[in-house]
């Protein structure tokens, strides 16, 4: 091992702080404090540190090593997700999750990196008065991130049969499909992205951008909860908060020493639901437009289980290996999916021996899903009394419901085209299973009601949206708050509308551009 290779580790460790080290209140100073270590925050922290700025990256959750990963999906969620993984929207009830860990959602997502189609950026530019947020401008940032994270199409060797069957179904129907591009290096196909990659093939932020930021001199403080953004006139002066014990879920018992960080600029990357709450708790900061917390959008997702005549070894293969963008203009994207089996089995009907028989079919089952561009389904994020957990109000619009019905029917077509003998739609109020596409036509009818649909919403957007007009948006195209000179937001909250594809890559590209602009202004 060369001296060069080993020299980085000791100083890098000295720049990390974990919960067990905090024994008193503290204050720090830096050029830029980044709040939140998810994909956008980590990219921003690295890029700013690489420019030579003194950066502190703050994360409320702890770092996880491979020995900290919990294989039981349910128990894993209690450790890696806010509210124990049981967060729900009000209005249209829908589960939604937000990670709390070093690396944020990248630790427990399926590593999908998709560039939105040109039409998305055109829509954003036209409706939100944006001049520099298009594919041509962002492509250099996408390219740099792709190179850094090894983003590439999922190879056939690790697709596994359930992903390849998705391709077969698309081919049989003449629908375009492609292997999903993911931020992985050397994926082995363990199918356990959602509980943490034990092979460390997934390039989550804790094994990629955060170590790189540490190498560039950034400091990383974990287990710290930012509670307030400090302000003086039209400038912010830093942040303050308290140390928080791992897995304490924000309870008072878990909070201890106070801290304060002074900075020349603050980058909020706490996530689309946490950033607006933080602004609201900070005397309704950056809200002259009245748009903070408004315009909440999701990609609501639906899924169907298909039962094949033979065992397909679904445990093996990339968690999400294949997709189809053929229906983007109709408002939905199709994907193959795997997750911890109990999570998938929640949709199975029945009790007793009937339910157990369904479980026993799992080795023959594939799950395919659709995420909808639900631009008409809006909501808001509100602060909760004496808590940093948000209240999420959101309603599924009837027009978006129609998109989801249509997507269910298309998934059913794919399954039967791929050779499934039955499908389990997991929708209440209609039969539990279908054995032909003719029977499954009911999926695209008014018999499928929103209240009977199992919907999940894990892509969240727009609560601090970017808009060229300061009276109609929270940040400008560089992510800077219209109201303040040195407060930036770098998470999916700044998306003006849903991006129609998985948002991580777009968030990182916007954050990289932002970091370059901010770095030049310091």
């Amino acid at each position: 091992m060369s001296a060069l290779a080993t020299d980085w580790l000791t100083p890098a460790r000295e720049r990390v702080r974990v919960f067990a080290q905090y024994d008193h209140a503290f204050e720090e100073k830096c050029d830029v404090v980044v709040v939140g270590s998810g994909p956008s925050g980590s990219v921003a922290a690295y890029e700013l540190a690489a420019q030579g700025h003194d950066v502190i990256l703050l994360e409320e959750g702890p770092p996880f090593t491979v020995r900290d990963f919990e294989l039981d999906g349910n128990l894993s969620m209690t450790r890696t997700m806010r509210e124990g993984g049981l967060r729900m929207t009000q209005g249209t009830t829908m589960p939604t999750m937000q990670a709390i860990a070093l690396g944020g959602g990248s630790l427990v997502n399926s590593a999908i990196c998709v560039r939105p189609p040109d039409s998305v950026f055109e829509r954003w530019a036209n409706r939100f008065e944006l001049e520099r947020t298009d594919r041509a401008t962002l492509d250099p940032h996408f390219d740099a991130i792709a190179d850094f994270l090894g983003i590439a199409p999922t190879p056939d060797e690790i697709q596994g049969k359930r992903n390849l069957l998705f391709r077969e179904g698309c081919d049989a129907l003449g629908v375009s499909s492609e292997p999903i591009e993911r931020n992985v290096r050397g994926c082995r196909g363990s199918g356990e992205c959602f509980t943490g990659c034990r092979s460390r093939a997934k390039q989550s932020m804790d094994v990629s951008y955060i170590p790189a930021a540490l190498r560039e001199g950034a400091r990383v403080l974990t287990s710290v909860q930012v509670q307030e953004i400090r302000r003086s006139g039209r400038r912010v002066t830093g942040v303050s908060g308290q140390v928080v014990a791992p897995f304490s879920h924000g309870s008072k018992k878990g909070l201890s020493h106070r801290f304060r960080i002074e900075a020349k600029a603050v980058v909020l990357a706490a996530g689309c639901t946490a950033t607006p709450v933080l602004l609201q708790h900070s005397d309704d900061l950056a809200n002259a437009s009245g748009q903070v917390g408004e315009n909440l959008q999701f990609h609501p997702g639906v899924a169907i289980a298909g039962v094949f005549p033979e065992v397909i070894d679904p445990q093996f293969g990339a968690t999400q290996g294949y997709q189809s963008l053929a229906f983007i203009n109709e408002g939905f994207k199709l994907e193959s999916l795997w997750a911890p089996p109990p999570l998938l089995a929640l949709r199975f009907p029945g009790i007793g021996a009937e339910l157990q028989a369904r479980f026993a079919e799992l080795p023959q089952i594939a799950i395919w899903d659709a995420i909808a561009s639900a631009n008409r389904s809006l909501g808001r994020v509100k602060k909760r009394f004496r808590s940093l957990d948000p209240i999420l109000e959101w309603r599924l619009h009837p027009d978006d419901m129609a998109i989801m019905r249509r997507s269910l029917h298309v998934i059913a077509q794919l399954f039967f085209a791929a050779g499934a003998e039955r499908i389990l739609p997991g929708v209440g109020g209609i039969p539990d299973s279908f054995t032909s596409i003719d029977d499954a036509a009911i999926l695209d009818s008014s018999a499928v009601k929103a209240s009977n649909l199992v919907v999940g919403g894990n892509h969240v957007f727009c609560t601090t949206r970017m808009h060229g007009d300061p009276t109609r948006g929270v940040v400008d195209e560089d992510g800077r708050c219209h109201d303040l000179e040195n407060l930036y937001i770098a998470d999916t909250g700044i998306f003006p509308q849903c991006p129609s594809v998985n948002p991580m890559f777009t968030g990182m590209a916007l954050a990289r551009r932002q970091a370059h602009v901010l770095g030049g202004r310091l």
Partner: protein
Amino acid sequence: MFIGLIVVAIAAALGLAIHRRGYVGYPPAPAGLAVLHRGEAAFVDAVAEVLFPGGGALVLSGVEAQLPHYIDRHLAALPRGKRVLIRLLFNTVEHITLLVPGDEPGGRRRFSSLSAASRVSILDRLAHHPNGLFRLLFTALRSVFVFGYLGHPANLHGLGLSPFEIEPVVSDAELLFPRVGGLMSSIDFEEADRTVDRDTVNPPLDPHGERHRAYSRAGRTGR
């Protein structure tokens, strides 16, 4: 004075009845529970017995899967508000017999004290109830149990769905950070221990290859 005595007597009788219905007559709780009280543990077993009966298609029955211990661990890990909600759910279904009685004499007794046939009947009626709130109760209840039952290592292994055996790796994260709760000085690894870097090329796993040892060794009691 007389009216006051009557009010006190009624209140006392009511209190006694609630106490009797809510707390009296439950078997002792299994050892090692941190959150569930004995009534809740009995309720969990009563639901598990009928949701996942013995002789089904999986290795373990619901009772053999020791769901009170799993659910207790899950509840202990949840935020207080969510924990309260799940316990409220259990206690609501335990006493839902006041509204949806079992198919037997005394069918309004607690859910956990009814026969298996009555419990099946009640769950089935909740699952198909015209009122969406009742259906939601059933769905939420079943979800809590499915995680513990299907997720039991013996059941997953029996289905061939247990995680693969993967030797622990050492990446930047393992070099830079301690285990959760540990001091920085507790990091076990140095650069020479690294097994993963940007150039690592891993072979794909064998779909029929070795599975996680803790799962393949799991018996009827092991988790």
